[in-house]
Every structure is written in structure tokens, then in C-alpha cells.
């Protein structure tokens, strides 16, 4: 008779066995606590700590009451002091990222729009081609452009033979090279987010707009564009956030001091004895600036996944 126990709430899985599900989640929770939450406290402890004067390694101070402001003052001087270098670099980072993400959007949106709406029976083929760069390592894709942009590479060869201009030293520290490198590096992620969002738009809505007499362009502006606002925002975030922490694209494509970004500052300080504390402060600053957009992203994706289910 035990098998025929009464149905209903008491039998619903998950409810009488909370402890079991909690135990199942426990290893992951513990892992995230120790290796995701604690590490950010370690950054704070390093930033609030001091530098060992003899060996130059940073000493973490875990008690907030004993935190010193030495690293913060040093970072402040880097930013606003006499001959400060970091503020112009921060400005450059913002302008590079803004330009690169706008170019990415202008390129990615039409392509994603075409594949989502008009590819028809060839959609699978287009999708494979759109996804392919996603599976090619970032380093390999940068290597490809380094090969093309060398002074005897195909880009200069083409420019010289078609336009008859002198070869340009693309890899010699040009901002445009770095910006296009960022576009090339991060656009696959944007295009996939845009495609997924545009593909989810009910074609009936667009057809309705057309049936009610709107032209192709006005249908786009008044129906498709408002419906794709969410994918545009999340797609931009998914490209902007890693771009802001990028320190390798400009190193590979230029290496010049004139194209340094905030990521280079942090990366260099991490490798320089005595400056690691400042690196911790700058990491915290970047994190502080990005907390709001990151939380927005998490909330927005949570909402769409809930409405999709």
C-alpha cells in the first residue's frame, strides 16, 4: 500500500527532499564561494595592503580595519598626478571600445538580419558560416591579420596595385589597426546574439506591418527595430565588456605606447614588482565601472530565458 501513497504537494519532487537538492548544489556553491567570491576579496586585501619594501611583492591585509591607503594614493597619482599616464589611456580605451563596438554593430546587424529573415532554405549554410569564426581561436584570427597587414602582405600589395599608393606600415602603431582588430576579434559573439534575438521575432508581426501598408524600410524602423532592442543591448554588452579588459589585441597588432589600453596598464603592473598593489586598485576601479552593466546583463538574460520557457 505504500506505493499508493497519496499524491499531491507532499509528493512533489524537490519539496520533501530539500536537503538532497541542497547537497547536490553544495560542491558548486562551495567552489564559487572559494574561487569566485573570495578572490575578489583578495583583490581588496591586496589593494588595501602594502608592498614589501625589500622584495617588492605585495602583502595582503585581510582585516579591513588595518587597510592602508598607500596603493590608492599611488593609483591616484598615476591617474591625476603630475605627468599622469593612466587617465589618457583610460580615455583612449573608452574611445577605442566605443568606435569598435559601433562599427561591429553596423556590420553585424545587417548580416544577422539577413540570415534570420531572408536566408530561407540556405539558413543552415549561412548559420554554419556565421558560427565558424566563433570556433577559431582569437590568437589564430589575429595571426591571420598580422600576416595580411605586414608591409609586404596582401593588403598593401592590393592597395599598391589598385590605388597606386605607397605601402602603409599597418602594424606600426596605428589606432585604426587596433580598432579594426577589436572589431574582427569580438564581432562573432555580437552577431550570434543578434541572430538569436532576430530569429525569435515572430514573422507574423513583420508581415502584419507589411500587410497594413508599411514599406520595407518603415516596417523595419517601426516593427523590427523596436523588437530587436533587447538583443542589441545584450549583444553590445557581450562585446563591450571583454573589449574593456583587452590587452592582447593592441599588443599583437601594434605594440606601440600610443595604442595602450587600460588592460595593458593592469597587465603590466601585475608583472612589475612593487606595482601589483596599484594593479589591484585599477582592477577594482574597472570592476566598479562595470558592475551596473553586468548586473543589467544578468537581469535581462534571466528575463528573456524565463519568457522563452
Amino acid at each position, binding site marked *: 500500500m505504500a*506505493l499508493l501513497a497519496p499524491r499531491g504537494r507532499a*509528493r512533489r*519532487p*524537490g519539496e520533501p527532499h*530539500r536537503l538532497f*537538492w541542497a*547537497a*547536490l*548544489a*553544495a560542491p*558548486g*556553491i562551495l*567552489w*564559487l564561494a572559494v*574561487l569566485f567570491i*573570495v*578572490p575578489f576579496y*583578495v*583583490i581588496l586585501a*591586496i589593494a588595501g595592503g602594502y608592498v614589501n619594501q625589500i622584495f617588492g611583492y605585495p602583502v595582503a591585509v585581510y582585516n579591513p580595519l588595518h587597510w592602508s591607503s598607500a596603493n590608492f594614493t599611488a593609483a591616484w597619482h598615476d591617474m591625476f598626478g603630475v605627468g599622469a599616464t593612466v587617465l589618457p589611456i583610460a580615455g583612449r580605451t573608452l574611445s577605442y571600445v566605443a568606435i569598435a563596438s559601433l562599427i561591429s554593430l553596423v*556590420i553585424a546587424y545587417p548580416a544577422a538580419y*539577413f540570415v534570420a529573415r*531572408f536566408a530561407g532554405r540556405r539558413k*543552415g549554410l*549561412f*548559420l*554554419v*558560416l556565421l558560427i565558424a*569564426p566563433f*570556433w*577559431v*581561436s*582569437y*590568437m*589564430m*584570427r*589575429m*595571426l*591571420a591579420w*598580422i*600576416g595580411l597587414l*605586414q608591409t609586404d*602582405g596582401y593588403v598593401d600589395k592590393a592597395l599598391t596595385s589598385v590605388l597606386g599608393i605607397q605601402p602603409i606600415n599597418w602594424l606600426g602603431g596605428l589606432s585604426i589597426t587596433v580598432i579594426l582588430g577589436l572589431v*574582427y576579434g569580438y564581432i562573432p559573439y555580437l552577431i550570434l546574439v543578434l*541572430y*538569436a534575438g532576430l530569429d525569435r521575432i515572430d514573422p507574423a508581426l513583420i508581415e502584419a506591418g*507589411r500587410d497594413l*501598408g508599411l*514599406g520595407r524600410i518603415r516596417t523595419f524602423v517601426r516593427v523590427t527595430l523596436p523588437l530587436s532592442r533587447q538583443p542589441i543591448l545584450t549583444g553590445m554588452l*557581450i562585446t563591450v565588456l571583454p573589449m574593456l579588459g583587452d590587452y*592582447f589585441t593592441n599588443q*599583437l597588432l601594434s605594440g606601440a605606447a600610443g595604442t595602450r589600453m587600460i588592460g595593458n596598464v593592469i*597587465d603590466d603592473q*601585475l608583472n612589475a614588482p612593487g606595482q601589483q598593489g596599484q594593479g589591484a586598485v585599477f582592477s577594482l576601479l*574597472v*570592476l566598479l565601472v562595470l558592475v551596473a552593466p*553586468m*548586473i543589467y546583463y*544578468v537581469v535581462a538574460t534571466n528575463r528573456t530565458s524565463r519568457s522563452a*520557457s
Partner: protein
Amino acid sequence: MSATTTALQPSPTVTAEERTGFGRLVPRRNPWRHPWFLEGFTWLYLIWSLVPVGLAVLFSFNDGKSQSFWQGFSWRWYFGDKINSVWYNPDLHAAVIQTIRLSVYTTVICVPLGVAFALGINRWRSRTSATFNFLMILSFVIPELIFGVAMFFTFTALFGTIGLGTTAQTLALVTWNVSWPAIIVQARLVTIGRQYEEAAADLGATPWQITYRVMLPLLIPAIFASAVLVFSSVIDDFVLVDLLFSNSSNTPMTVYIYSQQHGGNGGPALNALGTIMLVMSFVVVIIGYLGYRWMTRGERGGGRREALTTITGM
């Protein structure tokens, strides 16, 4: 003045609007015509995104050092050259091994951890589970450099005994990638619904039996897809392994390419290394795609496109 007078005069040509009185409702051109301009644009984008990589792969087989002058096909940079090829250069060799090692270690730890986490979080509804679910998604969007800095200080200051190296790299990569299985399995749990486990519970199954004999078999495709994603993301990962490597024995391929290439030309052996990386990723993805298709055969809503987007984590 002259402008108003001309406007008032009847226009010599009769437009469609005047002829029918329907105004813009009457299309002048086929509104469903194929958007050739957009298609051309898309092809240009695809050429721009794929042809450079194709050329880089091609020149890894070049019998010479040039990246722009073809000197004939050879395996020189793979194993032909006794000094500089991937096979004979000990550093290049070690880089391939380190990448494979990290991918295997990370996948083996990360996938069970993420799957158990997803199942537990999804069924154990509480404030703690919601908080950690939020944190897990946050780990998905936080810039890798910032997380890498946190890991760097954790393994040099807090857990100084671990230090930098393979262990630190693996632990960091597991944390960074655990959101793949956690997110994909939770999405799959939503599509499966609760009817199977409720049926099992009604028939007297314990939670462990439900998990092991009902949920896990249903989740196999999602678990497999997330393993594929974790494995290939580790192959391509750069920032974490770059911040956490300590010497040439734990330098993976991406870091090796970067350290050789920036500030100079690393030569075609790097292209060969990149090509090996590319082939590894593609093999993993193709296995993933075919495996996913096979596991979800006969399912409603399954299909080529669905398999492709799941394997990509879309």
C-alpha cells in the same frame, strides 16, 4: 511665391496615387523581392571574416617563411623542419601538450560540478540558491582580465602554496567555464518539464533514483553539449592561462603564440600551431554536433539547426 504657384498647378504626369486614390498602399515594386543588397553585404562580411583565417592556414603549409609569397606545399612547419617545426621544437611541442592537458582536466572537473550545481539549484529553491545562480551568471560576463587578476592574487597571496602553474590554471578555468554546463543543463531542465520526475516520484522513487535513473538520461545531450563547449573554450582561452602560467612547461598554445608574436614576427611555425588549434576545435565541434544529433534523435523540435545552436551555446 513662385514655389506655391508651381505647386498648385496640376502635375503633368499622373502618379499611382492619383490614379487609384489608395495612396501608398499600392506598391510600386514587388515588396517581397529578394534583398540582394543585404545578401551581398552578408557575403562580404563572411568573406572578410573567413578568408584571412583560410590564408593563415594555407601559409602554414608554405615551403618558406613568407606570409604573402607562395613557395610550394610542404609539411616543413609541422614536422619537416628538424629545429623549428611544431614536432621538433620542444617549446612548441610542450604548448600543444599543455593545451590538451588543461582541456581534459578542466572538462573532467567542470562538467560534473556544473551539472550537479544546475540540478541542485534548479530544484532547491531558496535565497542561497538564487544568490549563487546569480553569481554563476555574473561569472559569465565579468571581463576575463578582472577575474584573472583576482585569480592571480589568490594563487600568489592567499593560496601561495599552490602558486602559479597547471593547478592554478585548471582551478581558474573550471570556475570560468562552470557556467556553461550550469546554464545549458538548466535550459534543458526547463524544456524537459517536471512530468517525468513527478511520475517517478509517484511510483515511489527516491530523489537519488530520480536523479540517477530519470533526470541524468534525459540530460545526457545537454551534458554532452556542455562538455564540448568547455573543452573547446579551454583550447581557445588566453587571458587566464596567460596570467597564471609560470614557465615554459605550463605555457599553452595561445600563450606561446602571443609571447612569440607580439613585438615581432614569430614565423610560420606559429601558423602551424594555430592551425593545429583550429583543427582540434573543429574536430571537437564536429564530434559534438554529430553526437548531439544522435542523442536527440527522434525528439520533437530537434534538428540540425537546434543541434548547431546548442553546441555553440546560443
